[in-house]
């Protein structure tokens, strides 16, 4: 130690600085470790990090308008979108040039589709006109303003031009605004009329139902985990198999069984009618609503709650309870003041796991949720696979990701992520 203070850096036996020779000695080790994790790293990069990055990018990407309609975008720069007059001839001429070029390589439908998300009806204007404009001589057959409007009176709608101008940038917040029931108007962001709102409701419903599911899992899972941790190893293993059994059954099969159990002519209703609790003409609606989703998803996610709780409870020695009782605490006080606080990390770990899984759940709500019990993920799936509006799907996904990260952060602040134990 005194070497450092007197003669600068500590030297190794051969005179090189000790730090450098240490790094050299460890380099091979580090390299080997890196080689070992390289396949996994590559796998995660390709299948996880890149797709997530791509999704985040898509949620703001808007290059298509500029790429397909470069002249129009440039010409529209001089037009005041707030004015009530249509753009001048130059803009229409530019549109004719762009449309012809686009129609020749058949990309005019793509931009039509893009703009249609923002202003329904624009797709048909573009598609119909594109076919005709392809045959025009766009150099000297003006005036294009009249000709285009004659071709399709959609071109006379000032909203069409406003939409093009609003969405002429390379990047747009449009998808995100759509995802929170707003839209990008001529003067910036504005709230959509009440009849067009859907995403906020869905997001809030997803959060609320995920919280209910998480809470139900805690209430149902805690006693099971406690039992697992406090019986003999033999019995615990048997019970653990029962807990894990659902894992070995197809998710689809489990969800479908809930359909059989919960439907109005299903097992549960039949039994209730048979016992006489429920009238035959008054059968309970247990499926195709929020209740159905909550019941089925609580069942499916329960093991994810039980297992972390169990592994934490296993480490709580029974002497703590005995100590508490010897100090004068009743069974309840001993549990509540001594056992429960020590099991909180398990509850936390289970809750994070279940909540995050629930928020992004797709199959079960789709099958048993009906219209009232679907999640935001079902909407995302709709936009990715049916409507083709990937940008909006990506924005919704990004919002979901942000919410989960936010909750994770809040949890870290309140409970502390160090307190989460999965085993």
């Amino acid at each position, binding site marked *: 130690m005194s070497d450092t203070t007197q003669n600068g850096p500590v030297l190794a036996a051969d005179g090189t600085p000790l730090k450098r020779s240490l790094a050299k000695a460890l380099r091979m080790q580090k390299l080997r470790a890196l080689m070992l994790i390289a396949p996994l790293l590559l796998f995660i990069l390709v299948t996880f990090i890149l797709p997530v990055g791509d999704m985040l990018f898509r949620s703001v990407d808007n290059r298509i308008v500029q790429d397909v309609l470069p002249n129009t975008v440039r010409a529209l720069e001089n037009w005041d979108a707030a004015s009530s007059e249509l753009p001048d001839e130059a803009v229409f001429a530019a549109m004719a040039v762009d449309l012809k070029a686009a129609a020749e390589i058949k990309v005019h439908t793509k931009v039509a589709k893009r703009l249609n998300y923002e202003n329904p009806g624009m797709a048909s204007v573009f598609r119909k006109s594109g076919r005709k404009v392809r045959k025009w001589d766009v150099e000297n057959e003006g005036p294009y303003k009249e000709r285009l409007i004659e071709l399709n009176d959609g071109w006379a709608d000032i909203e069409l031009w406003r939409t093009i101008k609003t969405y002429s940038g390379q990047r747009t917040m449009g998808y995100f605004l759509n995802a929170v029931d707003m839209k990008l108007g001529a003067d910036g962001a504005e709230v959509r009329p009440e009849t067009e709102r859907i995403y906020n409701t869905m997001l809030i419903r997803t959060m609320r139902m995920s919280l209910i599911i998480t809470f139900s899992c805690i209430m149902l899972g805690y006693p099971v985990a406690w039992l697992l941790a406090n019986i003999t190893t033999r019995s615990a293993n048997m019970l653990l198999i029962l807990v894990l059994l659902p894992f070995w059954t197809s998710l689809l099969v489990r969800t479908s069984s809930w359909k059989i159990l919960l439907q109005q002519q299903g097992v549960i209703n039949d039994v209730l009618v048979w016992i006489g609790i429920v009238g035959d003409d008054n059968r309970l609606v247990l499926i195709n609503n929020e209740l159905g989703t909550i019941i089925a998803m609580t069942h499916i996610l329960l093991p994810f709650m039980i297992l972390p709780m169990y592994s934490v409870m296993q480490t709580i020695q029974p*002497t*703590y309870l005995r100590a508490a009782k010897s*100090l*004068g605490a009743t069974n309840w006080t001993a549990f509540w003041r001594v056992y429960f606080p020590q099991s909180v990390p398990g509850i936390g770990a289970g809750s994070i796991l279940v909540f995050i899984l629930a928020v992004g759940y797709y199959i079960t709500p789709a099958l048993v949720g009906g219209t009232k019990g679907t999640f935001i993920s079902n909407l995302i799936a709709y936009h990715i696979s049916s409507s083709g509006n990937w940008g909006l799907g990506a924005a919704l996904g990004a919002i979901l990701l942000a919410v989960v990260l936010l909750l994770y952060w809040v949890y870290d602040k309140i409970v502390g992520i160090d307190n989460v134990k999965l085993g």
Partner: protein
Amino acid sequence: MADASNNDAFVEFERVQKSYDGENLVVKDLNLIMPKGEFLTMLGPSGSGKTTCLMMLAGFETATHGDIRLGGTSINNIPPHKRGIGMVFQNYALFPHMTIAENLSFPLEVRKMGKSEREAKVKRALDMVEMGAFGGRRPSQLSGGQQQRIALARALVFEPELVLMDEPLGALDKQLREKMQFEITHLAHRLGITVVYVTHDQTEALTMSDRVAVFEDGRIQQLAPPDKLYEEPQNSFVAQFIGENNTLEGVVKEINNGVALVQLDDGELIDCKPVNVSKPGERTRVSIRPERVEYNKDRLSEGVHTLKAEVLEFIYMGDIFRTRLRVAGNDEFVIKTRNAPDQVRLKPGQQIEIGWLPEDCRALDA
């Protein structure tokens, strides 16, 4: 309070039995009476039933048969939290999610004590174990010895009359253990509390206790003060278990005036004190403490029988010499001698004669 002569029974076990599986008895017919203020140690190998007895007293196990009384009333049906017995656990069982002060405050809170009173008592208890500055820490921030003190303070803070300790020093290193042994005994005597202490460490039992109950096979083999236990073991298990001990086997030839003549298996004769033997012809195991064996002929009294011995090993241990001998076919016969200036140092191979006072050589059960 610390009046051991007050013979009113404070803790009482009467014909207590305990079985876990309905087939084997872990505790067989336990009878024990403890006066107030006594420090009693239950000593025994693992599986001897001592911890079970402690747990029955604490209320965590129920007796299969028999009666356990505290201060005259049967506590068989009183749940642990109403017994008011302080307990120190082997692993301390300090609540990890509470600070030291909260740990100590816990028994007072469940007794619905006011805040200022609680704080005063916690402070007093912490000062008692010289841990006054540690109230705000967590158990995991303390060393083993410090945790031990806190566990002790927590068991005492609500002023129980009876405190149970289940191998509380087992996890400490030797030096700390010896220090804590004295602290615990001093504290117990100063406060006048009754202590039942469980350990498998015989040194601990001897140095700390007023009386020691030696457990084996679910029974108390001997219940006696430490000196009696060491010097006058009642049977060969106790003789073997407490301290170091030499045994020789043989047959009783005759018993005269309280001295038994025993013929060892190789034919030699020795004089013993009959303890568990009553008539000639019985097989016996003779027990002699290593420090009571004499090989200096001048110091042996006239007329006693002596045995020939060969020195196998001489170990210098500083304060004492430890010599291993072959005596009557037994290669593990050990003698201990004090390192005095005039003491002869034996050499391996040397032939000597050894002897002892008849009363130090006890003829026990075979």
